[in-house]
């Protein structure tokens, strides 16, 4: 391209680009006001675990299935005294949910692991309910649908 050609090409492509951004200026933004408008939830979200102590038969299958051995179960069948997951090591991979014969361990919807106070340790004991980020969230209704095209 000659000298004038480059100038013309520069101005023309700039104009094309700016026409596009002009059109974008008038389209509705796709972002949402996060805390007020809820974020999207997948029905199979792999967030913080949810555990029903009374159903657990302490068969250690989930502890064996965990790649990082971060589950610790103490206590006899149907009377588990301690079911502790160390969230410093947990990968949130969901391998502990599959082998459970009585389906007492699920991964919930709580993915936001921030907390306002400096809590010692990252272990949650689900039987006693101690530890950080303890929430009563249960799995979202399967109907939590997908975000529609904006």
């Amino acid at each position, binding site marked *: 391209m000659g000298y004038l050609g480059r100038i013309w090409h520069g101005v023309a492509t700039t104009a094309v680009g700016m026409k596009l951004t002009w059109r974008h*200026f008038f389209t509705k933004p*796709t972002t949402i006001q996060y805390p007020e408008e809820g974020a999207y939830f997948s029905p199979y979200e792999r967030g913080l675990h949810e555990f029903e102590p009374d159903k657990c038969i302490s068969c250690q299958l989930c502890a064996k299935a965990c790649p990082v051995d971060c589950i610790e179960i103490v206590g006899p069948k149907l009377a588990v005294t301690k079911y502790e997951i160390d969230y410093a090591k947990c990968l949130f991979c969901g391998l502990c949910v599959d082998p459970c014969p009585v389906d007492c361990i699920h991964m919930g919807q709580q993915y936001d692991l921030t907390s306002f106070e400096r809590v010692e340790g990252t272990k949650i004991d689900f039987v006693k309910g101690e530890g950080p980020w303890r929430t009563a969230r249960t799995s979202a209704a399967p109907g939590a649908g997908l975000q529609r095209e904006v």
Partner: protein
Amino acid sequence: MKDYIDGLWSKHAFLQDNLPVGLGYTTGILLACTAVLLLVSLFAGEIVWMERRIAGRIQARIGPNRVGPQGLLQFLADGLKLMAKEDIIPSGADRMVFLIAPYIVFAGAFAAFAAMPFGYGLVPADMNFGLFFMLSISSIEVVGVIMAGWASNSKWSILGTMREVAQMISYEMPLAISSLTVVVLAGTLNLTDIVQQQSGWIWSWWVFRSPATFVGFFIFFTAALAALKRAPFDLPEAESELVAGFHTEYTGFRFAIFFLAEYAGMFFFALLTSVLFFGGWHIGVPIDLSTGFGRALGFLVLFGKSAAFLSIMIWIRWSLPRYRVDKVMYLCYKVLLPWSVVAVVVAALQVLITGGR
């Protein structure tokens, strides 16, 4: 503004005889300067908000809308946050130069407003060589940036400064020459006179009055973008290459001063473009705007035009990638400079042939 205060001063006998003669003049200047300083820094803050909102909408997001109604007080929040931030001075830094640099950049950006007409008669200091003064004062920024770059003892700052020097100095030329086209046709450097000559219908504005000034406008605007280190020419503080260019090591309020100076500079060039090329406070209909109410209307019209130019600058910034250093130089010396010289020659010929006016 200052002679208005001067006149006010002379009416009151009590003030007249008790206080030294020159005081009226100096308080006039001081009042004018503080008014300009407050107005411009407030408006520079609003430009920050304007930029982030426009950029947001261009990028399909919302932009700041939490602090104050629709986010209008965002710049106050930013200012407070920056003030609260720790003020780090690098260990190897040349301390004194490091501390002074932001204030020199700030001074360069704000001193240029001294001769800028905000409306008919609303001129802090109505100089006869107004345009010449402004263009030369605003190049003090380069000195400030060099001091900042050298003093912070970081390799990124050094590279940022070298780019800054190369770019600012070379783009002063097309900037000055393209504004010369208007001066040649207008015959005066005094900005108020330049604007007064555009008081007729819309085609009496300089930009439409001759092909030279039409081309001159585009060159002036591009060169202004480069002189402000904005949009495709933001090489001195290119995030992706030089981390943050010359103000990499600056934190806290010192960084806020750089930030404010940049947006004040943006406001300055937007005002200058509308004053030089687009009829300042005239609205394209020949009515007399020198009366009290007309003056206020003129003030608003001038702000409207500069807001338009500011949004164009912002619009350009968010839709173009960044040039490389040698391409910026090529654009200056091979494209803008020759064409601006041609524009001045054409303007001169036009004056020769048609006797100007």
